[in-house]
């Protein structure tokens, strides 16, 4: 699915003061169908907001976001979101959680069951179908979250810092898993992270955002060969890209601080 943002802006209204808060300001970019794109930027810069616009959960205040040339209007079956908090239904087993999206979209039960059975295998949850979320580790909960999104066979997969709450080891492991799974599905993916390492390992293309109000700072192409294994992180080419990305983010960070509390430094 092609994505095109044209001068996309989102303003929130602050509840207490009723003042407007610009979360995204005139964001323009485009993503080719079938690409894995990472969004990176400081926290609060509007990454989640951008994903929410793509998911149809937040309406743009100005500009538009086009999916295959059509402006987003509300949620749709062609998209699915993997949430930062796993957002699993605690009273449902793993299997029934993974089926949730299909159920909402009115799939026949048998077909939903068949699709989910395959996905449970794909995300490595075999044997845990009847477990409840509270019995699972954070990493496994995120696999269910992922399986639930993949089950609806979206043309655009939106992932919002899905590994932010995992420990370093599990996080690396899940990065490998995402790469493995993506090799099979090849869905257009927007993946939000604030880890440079994660972005370079996963992405075809990295969109760097400025701090609030979020704008696009630059776009970095990652032309590392696929499929990628975790050893890739030791490759000099990997480091070259990660270092230049780090420089960009450092510069952005200094600029932000320069305008603010560290003025005159």
């Amino acid at each position: 699915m092609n994505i095109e943002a044209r001068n996309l802006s989102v303003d929130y209204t602050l509840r207490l003061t009723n003042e407007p808060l610009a979360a995204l300001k005139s964001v323009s970019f485009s993503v080719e169908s079938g690409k894995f794109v990472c969004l990176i930027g400081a926290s609060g810069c509007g990454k989640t907001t951008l994903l929410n616009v793509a998911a149809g959960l937040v309406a743009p205040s100005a500009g538009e976001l086009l999916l295959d040339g059509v402006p987003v209007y509300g949620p749709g079956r062609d998209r699915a979101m993997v949430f930062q908090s796993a957002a699993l239904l605690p009273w449902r087993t793993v299997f029934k959680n993974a089926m949730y999206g299909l159920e909402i979209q009115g799939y026949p039960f048998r077909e939903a069951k068949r699709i989910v059975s395959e996905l449970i295998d794909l995300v490595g949850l075999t044997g845990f179908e009847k477990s409840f979320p509270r019995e699972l580790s954070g990493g496994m909960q995120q696999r269910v979250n992922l399986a639930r999104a993949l089950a609806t066979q979206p043309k655009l997969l939106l992932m919002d810092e899905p590994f932010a709450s995992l420990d370093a080891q599990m996080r690396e492991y899940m990065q490998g898993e995402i790469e493995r799974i993506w090799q099979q599905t090849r869905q257009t993916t927007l993946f939000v992270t604030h880890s440079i390492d994660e972005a370079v390992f996963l992405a075809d293309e990295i969109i760097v955002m400025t701090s609030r109000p979020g704008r696009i700072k630059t776009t970095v192409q990652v032309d590392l060969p696929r499929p990628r294994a975790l050893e890739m992180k030791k490759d000099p080419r990997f480091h070259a890209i990660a270092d230049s990305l780090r420089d960009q983010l450092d510069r952005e960070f200094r600029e932000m601080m320069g305008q603010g509390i560290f003025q005159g430094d």
Partner: protein
Amino acid sequence: MNSINSSVRDKLLAILTGVTFVGLWEILPASGLINPFFTSSPSRIYVAAKWLFANGFWNDIYVSLTQFTLGMLLAMVVGIVLGLLLGWYKTLNAMFEPFVTMLNAMPRVALLPIIILWLGIGMESKIAAVFLGAFLPIIITVMKGVRTVDENLIKCARSFGANDAQMFLTLAVPSSLPFIVAGLHIAVGRGLVGVVIGELLASQAGVGHMMAKASATFQIDKVFVGVLFLAVFGYLLTELLKLIEKQFEKWRPQ
């Protein structure tokens, strides 16, 4: 191992307390230290119970249980349905919530004389008394349960394109189930109070009716039979609800 031992120990301690109490209750009146005319005693209560069961107490129990069950069922249906709807739909909530709070705050026993005037001294007025006692705790806990639906789950459902009815059925209803049972815990107590007070005020049969009659004729032993029956019945219902609550422990986070 240790925890098993300590739970056995706790049970034995509870039994010991109970046996001591019953023992003292028997011995003190018998020794003449206190007057059994007011306190009765376990052996007297046993004799009174035997007599009562041979002389129509089954019918009183049947009448009371029927009133209680019908009133509770009505309270459950109305309380659960209204609680879910008022908790979920903001408009309905704005229309009715103040009145629910008001009704809950007032002593509803005060309505009983009116209800008896309206419905008479038969079973209907007692069913209404049970309903009045039980439906408010249910409606209030269910409303609370619906409001605790995780914001993230609502976002997730919306992202899959769920409509309001789907979110209501797949999120609001299941997440308020434990609250429904918690509400029933309170409701059982209030419902029992309703049936007894209703029968004490005006009735033709029932456990409360028997107690009122016995009390008016100073037959304290019979009154105690009624008290014991109600205590045991309330205790059993509470234990049953605890068993149902265990079902939620499988998935409840924590």
